[in-house]
């Protein structure tokens, strides 16, 4: 049933899939940007807030991992959707903040959630584009007949990868865990995923893997030209390069997927874009040439939550269940560099308000 064409992009349309339900879990601890006023000056902070649109973010507790947050979102989803745990055949954990170097966190979650030993588990190590990969994996497992229901858990504790002296990042990233149930259904989903590894060092934690093991040198604090401090063990983002990358590629990827689906662009009801920051989302919207109403944002209170941002947006905005979501585009972009979009219907999807909203 899987129909993969290789044109200029990796594209596929997978039949008989339903994105059944979406939940999310926000950590309780709140970090307000104005708390940095004393350190950096109120004017500087307010300039940054005006550009990013991020007023506050949620931060995981010191002992709370991405899998802890995803576990809570999953537990809630299983209970509220009245799912028999034995029906879940696949578990996908999308995160860059796993519990351990090994084993895969998805296996730990299989046991914690009480899923059958016949569950196939996989970790997908992507950030802001990761939700697209998670749904792609789930759809392929269902389409192949390997699974009837797959749980996609996407979340990150990006705050734990950031040096507190790096305001370019602490003012942007927040933590969140999400759960999405994918099952057999009546609709088809289009996928388009792209990669450009030449930009691998534009969004990176250089040290701590096996290329640059941790050492005294990787713990040295380095100050950049914008006065942000970080070590080689902390997250680094070249915001300019990420913006250039995103505004060059994302709208083209979406437009080509809409073409592949043979949709009319005007019929698309919702563009659920990765919530990077207001500046970037608004600029991509301009490149897409679509109205603001079709490109909602909820960046203000949660910031950029990496792989969780799209499911968090959906559960945050659509839990009332009144919107017509017959034709929906989701698009993620970031680390890798990687970018990808999904075309689907969400009319048969149950959204639940984020826990701790």
């Amino acid at each position, binding site marked *: 049933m899987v129909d993969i064409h290789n044109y200029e992009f990796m594209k596929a349309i997978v039949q008989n899939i339903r994105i059944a339900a979406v939940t999310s879990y926000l950590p309780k601890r709140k970090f307000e940007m104005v708390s940095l006023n004393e350190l950096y000056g109120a004017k500087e902070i307010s300039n940054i807030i005006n550009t990013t649109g991020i007023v506050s973010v949620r931060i995981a507790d010191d002992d709370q991992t991405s899998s802890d947050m995803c576990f809570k979102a999953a537990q809630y989803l299983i209970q509220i959707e009245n799912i028999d745990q034995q029906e879940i055949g696949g578990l996908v954990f999308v995160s860059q903040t796993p519990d351990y170097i090994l084993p895969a966190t998805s296996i730990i979650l299989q046991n914690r959630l009480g899923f059958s030993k016949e569950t196939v588990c996989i970790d997908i190590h992507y950030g802001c584009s990761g939700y697209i990969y998670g749904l792609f994996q789930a759809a392929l497992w269902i389409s192949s007949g390997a699974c009837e229901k797959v749980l996609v858990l996407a979340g990150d504790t990006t705050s734990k990868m950031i040096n507190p002296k790096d305001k370019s990042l602490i003012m942007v990233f927040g933590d969140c865990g999400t759960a999405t149930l994918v099952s057999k259904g009546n609709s088809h989903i289009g996928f388009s995923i792209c990669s450009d590894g030449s930009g691998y060092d534009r969004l990176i934690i250089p040290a701590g893997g096996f290329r640059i093991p941790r050492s005294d040198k990787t713990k040295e604090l380095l100050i950049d030209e914008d006065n942000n401090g970080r070590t080689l063990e902390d997250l680094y983002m070249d915001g300019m390069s990420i913006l250039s990358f995103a*505004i060059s590629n994302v709208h083209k990827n979406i437009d080509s997927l809409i073409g592949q689906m043979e949709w009319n662009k005007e019929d698309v009801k919702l563009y659920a874009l990765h919530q990077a920051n207001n500046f970037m989302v608004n600029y991509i919207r301009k490149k897409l040439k679509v109205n603001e109403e079709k490109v909602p944002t909820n960046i203000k209170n949660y910031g950029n939550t990496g792989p969780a941002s799209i499911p968090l947006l959906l559960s945050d905005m659509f839990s009332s269940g009144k919107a017509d979501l017959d034709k929906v585009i989701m698009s993620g972009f970031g680390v890798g560099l990687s970018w990808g979009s999904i075309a689907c219907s969400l009319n048969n999807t149950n959204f639940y308000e984020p826990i701790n909203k």
Partner: protein
Amino acid sequence: MDINDFIKNFACQFDETPESKFTAQTKFRTEIEEWDSLRALSVIAMVDDVYGVIIKGGDIRNSNTVEDLFNIVNSRE
């Protein structure tokens, strides 16, 4: 592409620095106090908007003066 228009468009990205402070020879990264990574983002967006060219972070880091950046954009337009 006209350099005076480019300078004007470049200057528009700043809230506090008056347009008169910008010339072709202005070393924007060091001489303009208001220059920071946020300004850089709006310059990238402006160049795309007005000239249809997407410049990269490296293009800005490799430009000393407004004219240097103009030359990069001009060569790709």
